[in-house]
């Protein structure tokens, strides 16, 4: 403890340590708190390990399944992701070891990135028919051996669709609040609206989407309805973080730009937003994580089924379930005999996706804000 203490504290170290009762309490608290974190960490590891058997079952997979559009393209993409992640992990390990030994150079770095991309594309070309069966096959209602291919596709498609709505509106609102707000009353109204949105239970979003899209517009269950609802759900998060990172842009930069004759809008587009961009990206990545996790609103707007013919269709006005919805559906309505195994695999895919998005988000966040490496480079 003492290393982090200020000089003042060190003078009274014996007193700072407190009596034996306090020391005991402190130790007990420490053990309890650490065991909580260890418990969560072990749970995550367990989830991945439990599903790994399902994911690792590589099987020869009959070349394209009849009557499913875009199936081969999807298989190619999945293969690219799988091999890309594997290669990237290997490169990260090598980089870690080489950095330790002081042998990691800029050329090695570039070579490593090329190798990762090459491994992803090469692996996809060569082994796209030998993928883990679970990741590419269609789900099955009643028989064993169902996969989550369409669910993975839908989950990612949802992320793309809802980001396409959240990004322009969320960043626009954040820029407005941080830089262009003129009427304090309107700003107050917008902030209250955002606070309200942030506090609504997700089921309420689902009911709203159901009322508007399914009942009023009679459009039935659709990916678009689900994506719109998720975009609304993510707005408070994105606006909040984006506004914060815009506020973190040093005032001098904006002032300098304005002094050079740029208009406020030009300053925003060319100076403020590029500078705050890493923070905004990390907000977007976090919101994608919530798209992966959300289930209740999607059940009401996008339904719980996957149709065989349009499993990989890009049409946003069809229904479809995500991984999270599938996990719920398999356990509460599914009849498949291997539903525990299917659930384990689905949960493992979800956990891997969530951990990846969190890693990406924190990587982006590191470059953002006043303390980021970008700012350091600029002010060196």
């Amino acid at each position, binding site marked *: 403890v003492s*290393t982090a203490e*200020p000089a*003042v504290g060190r003078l009274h170290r014996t*007193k*700072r*340590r*407190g*009596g034996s009762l*306090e020391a005991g*309490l*402190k130790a007990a*608290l420490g053990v*309890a*708190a*650490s065991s*909580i*974190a260890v418990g*969560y960490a072990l749970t*995550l590891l367990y*989830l991945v390990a439990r599903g790994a058997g399902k994911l690792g079952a590589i099987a020869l997979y009959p070349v394209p399944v009849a009557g499913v559009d875009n199936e081969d393209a999807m298989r190619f993409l999945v293969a690219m992701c799988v091999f890309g992640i594997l290669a990237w992990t290997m490169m990260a390990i090598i980089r870690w070891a080489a950095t330790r030994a002081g042998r990691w150079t800029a050329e090695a770095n570039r070579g490593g990135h090329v190798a990762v991309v090459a491994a992803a594309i090469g692996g996809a070309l060569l082994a796209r028919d030998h993928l883990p069966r679970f990741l590419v096959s269609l789900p099955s209602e009643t028989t064993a051996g169902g996969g989550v291919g369409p669910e993975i596709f839908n989950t990612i498609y949802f992320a793309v669709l809802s980001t396409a709505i959240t990004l322009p*509106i969320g*960043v*626009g*609102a954040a*820029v407005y*609040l941080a830089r*262009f707000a003129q009427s304090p009353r309107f700003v107050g109204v*917008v902030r*209250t*609206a955002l*606070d309200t949105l942030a*506090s*609504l*239970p*997700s*089921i*309420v*979003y689902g*009911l*709203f989407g159901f*009322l*508007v899209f399914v*009942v009023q517009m009679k459009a039935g269950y659709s990916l678009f309805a689900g994506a719109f609802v998720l975009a*609304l759900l993510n707005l408070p998060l994105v606006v909040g973080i984006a506004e914060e990172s815009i506020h973190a842009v040093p005032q001098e930069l904006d002032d300098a730009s304005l002094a050079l004759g740029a208009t406020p*809008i030009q300053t925003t587009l060319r100076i403020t937003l590029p500078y705050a961009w890493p923070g905004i990206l990390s907000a977007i990545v976090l919101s994608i994580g919530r798209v992966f*996790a959300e*289930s*209740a609103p999607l*059940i*009401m707007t996008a339904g719980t089924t996957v149709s065989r013919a349009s499993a990989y269709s890009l049409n946003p006005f069809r229904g479809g379930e995500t991984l*999270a*919805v599938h*996990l*719920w559906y398999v*356990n*509460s309505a599914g009849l498949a005999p291997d539903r525990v195994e299917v659930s384990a695999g689905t*949960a493992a895919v*979800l*956990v891997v996706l969530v951990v990846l998005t*969190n890693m990406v988000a924190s990587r982006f966040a590191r470059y953002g804000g006043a303390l980021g490496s970008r700012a350091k480079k600029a002010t060196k």
Partner: protein
Amino acid sequence: VAIAEVAKANSARFKAASHSRLGEAALRGYLVACGGFVVATTLAMLAYLAQTGLRGVLEAGIGQLVAGVVWKPEASSFGGFPLIAGTFASATGAIVLGAIPAVLGAVWLTEFAPEPVRRVYRRVMEVASAIPSVVYGWLALIYLVPLMDTIAHSLKGEDAPVSGVGLGSASVLLAIMVAPTVMLLSLDALARVPSALRDASAALGASSWQTAFRVSAPYAWRGLLVAVFFGFARAAGETMAVQMVIGGARRLPKESFLFSPTTTISAQIVMDMQDARPGTPQNNVLFSMALILLVVSVGVVLGTRALGRQGLK
């Protein structure tokens, strides 16, 4: 010559800027429209829900919805009390079991833990709070429910009509789910405590334990309260995970408070939504129940937010 050239270029650029006034105005308008969109959708959402929900309230009667004990929409019996009670009981249980350890853990982490532990701990909690709720629900379904079943039978006897599903499992599950969120918010609140306060406390001769619990935590109490209530709102609004472990019986817990199946507002909405045709009273009352949930969680969160803002000033 160089200066003159730069000046010329600059004035040209300035002219170009003033030429695009129209674009400028359009972009400004767009930004205002984004703000307007947020307000408009929020209002639309509240209006839609209120309209349908109030229709349901009129059809069923407010007294029946809040105090009636038989929830059978298909038989036009809309007693919402079991749903409301289930929601509040499970959320309260979650807060008691989950929020207190989370807040204490946050205090330990900010005040006593070494820096590397703090960083790793935070990352673990960030990932844990981002894990989909259905994943927690599934884990609870295959591990927690059998465990609770054993506990229930060893407490009440082998042949007692008790089971692992119910408020007990739901509370434990919700506690596990909201603890990371509460802890992250508590960490943020404790990080806002000025370090000058801690130094002053140390200079006065306080031990680190005294500093933590008599200076830091009291200073951050509003933030900690916001964290706890936020956790409550999240627990009350949680749907699918709870639906998986609470049993889905549309009545108050009968044989045993903790160990017999009951239901919550959001779980029941999802289940009944699949049967009720839109526009019928059976469907409208679901929106009324959602309205109750909405009023509670918006009230809780906005109230504590206001409290937190005051605290920052």
